[in-house]
């Protein structure tokens, strides 16, 4: 090692840690349709990143580009600090993936399908193959069904086998596209626990899902896609805090309180005399200051609550109420 290389190695200690996944300006067209439009994802190491978006918003297309299945029209992908798809052969052994549902050979058993995948992996130790396969099957609760033909698996069993395949080797990054699709409540819970367990072992997880309550329970970070664009990304707390907090005040003195709140500079004041309450966006105001102001003004205060929107409220606010898929 030369002197300059040593100093480079030392300097890297101060540099911010390399994220598990980073894209820059990722873009992909299908004909004239922009399926993925200038998406710059940032998934820090150790994060559980909830990758959200309505149907057709470009999540799976993005994931395909991350893994080198689909070429990008523009932009860059870095997986575990390595450029994709150039470093594909070196990086992907450290990445487990479930992409748009499981796919296996229907006339092979679950275990035989995993043997096929393990035999394909040049970095898998043949000596430990059986043990790792048994372990992966046990982790997803498929031990009893290992000898059944894949064709005869139920929807949830197929999904579990897909997860088992992603867990055949220790991974630095797991990319899971709708892992809970078709799972029963126990299965969904198991997947949640599995993700937590993997994350606590240091595996970074990118998980796309439509089950927002699930994501809210496991994710540390979220990114929200709509019509090919990444609308918002950050830690779960950051993203949730964008949703304007609302203060709800119960009082018989609705009109006077409304005037007071306006004086205090609160926006979007909505008096509701019939229910004897009013709502307003909290903005920068501290709720305790609002309470004190109401009481000091001699108004009768029955109750005061601060409501923050949950992930679903925020998701709908960002991506729209409309049911039709966007083009």
């Amino acid at each position: 090692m030369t002197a300059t290389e040593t100093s480079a190695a030392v300097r890297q200690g101060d540099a911010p840690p390399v994220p598990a996944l980073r894209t820059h300006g990722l873009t992909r067209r299908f004909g004239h349709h922009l399926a993925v439009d200038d998406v710059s994802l940032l998934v820090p190491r150790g994060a559980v990143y909830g990758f959200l978006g309505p149907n057709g918003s470009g999540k799976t297309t993005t994931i395909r580009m991350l893994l080198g299945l689909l070429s990008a029209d523009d932009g860059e992908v870095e997986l575990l600090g390595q450029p994709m798809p150039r470093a594909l052969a070196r990086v992907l052994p450290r990445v487990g993936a479930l992409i748009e549902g499981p796919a296996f050979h229907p006339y092979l058993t679950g275990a035989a399908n995993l043997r096929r995948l393990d035999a394909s992996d040049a970095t898998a130790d043949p000596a430990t193959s059986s043990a790792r396969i048994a372990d992966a099957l046990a982790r997803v609760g498929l031990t009893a069904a290992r000898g059944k033909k894949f064709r005869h698996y139920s929807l949830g069993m197929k999904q579990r086998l897909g997860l088992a395949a992603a867990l055949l080797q220790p991974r630095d990054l797991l990319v899971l596209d709708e892992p809970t699709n078709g799972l029963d409540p126990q299965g969904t819970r198991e997947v949640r626990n599995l993700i937590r367990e993997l994350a606590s072992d240091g595996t970074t997880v990118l998980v796309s899902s439509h089950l927002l309550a699930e994501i809210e329970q496991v994710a540390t970070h979220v990114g929200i896609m709509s019509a090919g664009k990444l609308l918002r990304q950050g830690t779960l707390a950051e993203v949730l805090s964008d949703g304007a907090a609302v203060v709800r005040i119960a009082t018989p003195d609705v009109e006077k309180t409304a005037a007071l709140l306006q004086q205090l500079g609160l926006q979007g004041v909505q008096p509701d005399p019939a229910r004897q309450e009013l709502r307003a966006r909290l903005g920068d105001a501290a709720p305790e200051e609002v309470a004190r102001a109401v009481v000091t003004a001699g108004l009768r205060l029955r109750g005061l609550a601060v409501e923050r929107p949950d992930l679903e409220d925020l998701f709908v606010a960002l991506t729209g109420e409309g049911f039709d898929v966007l083009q």
Partner: protein
Amino acid sequence: MSSSDVLAPAFVAPTRYRGAFGRLYRSEVRLILGRRRNVAMLVVLSIVPLLIGIAVKVSTPRGGDGPQFLGQITGNGLFLVFTALTVGMPLFLPLVVGVVAGDSVAGEAGLGTLRYLLTVPVTRSRVLIVKTLGVLTFTATAVLVVGLMGILAGGILFGLHDVTLLSGDTVSLGNGLLRTLGVIAYVIVALFGLAAGGLFVSTLTENAIAAMATTVGIAVLSLLLDAVPQLSGLHPYLLTHNWLGFGELLRGQVDTGALLSWSGLHLAYAAVFLSLAWARLSTKDVTG
């Protein structure tokens, strides 16, 4: 230490195990030979020499037409191999090779297993190589099944004797068996051109049935063109034109030059088709 190590200190590329490609190849062969449809095709192929042998045995000999070598079978069971290959070449063998070659990539793309193979990862070049070797292995197996069943059935029904060649010379049985091996090898090389065509077609679609039909269609088209006298200038270059050229090995003076040039043509077809397959697979968007 390279610059990428400096940029990504935490990343350690996992090491490849020795013999990893052999493991992948064996898994591919197991996938092909473990499939009931493919085994059924091999069983049907193995029945062809048996049926011909029995038909010849029970019928009264009569001269005239019929496939090449048919007349010689009663004299020497070894000729059953050549008859069976002559019968199998335009029909059964291309069909069987077309099914497996057409299925090779398209089948996995259709099932969606191709995307999981690629993310294991098996690089695209390795996918093509292992699929090619798998199809070649199956092709060789199919030809060997016909050959071995021919020798077996011919030996039992008519006995194996010294071989009277087409040129009239007689050679020992050992020499005859050696020539039979040469015939089998030639047929495998001849079918390689079609197998490579099937692999290429298979990279174009996710519909395995369509790929199979197209591959068999290539062989049929070539056979049809070969039967049009007006196109005689084209004939020597057709994929199927020299498929029955193995008869050359049954002459006293084997024209090795001709055999080599025909084999060269088959290998040239294979090279062109495999290059096309590579061009396609290496840039293919895997969306299935």
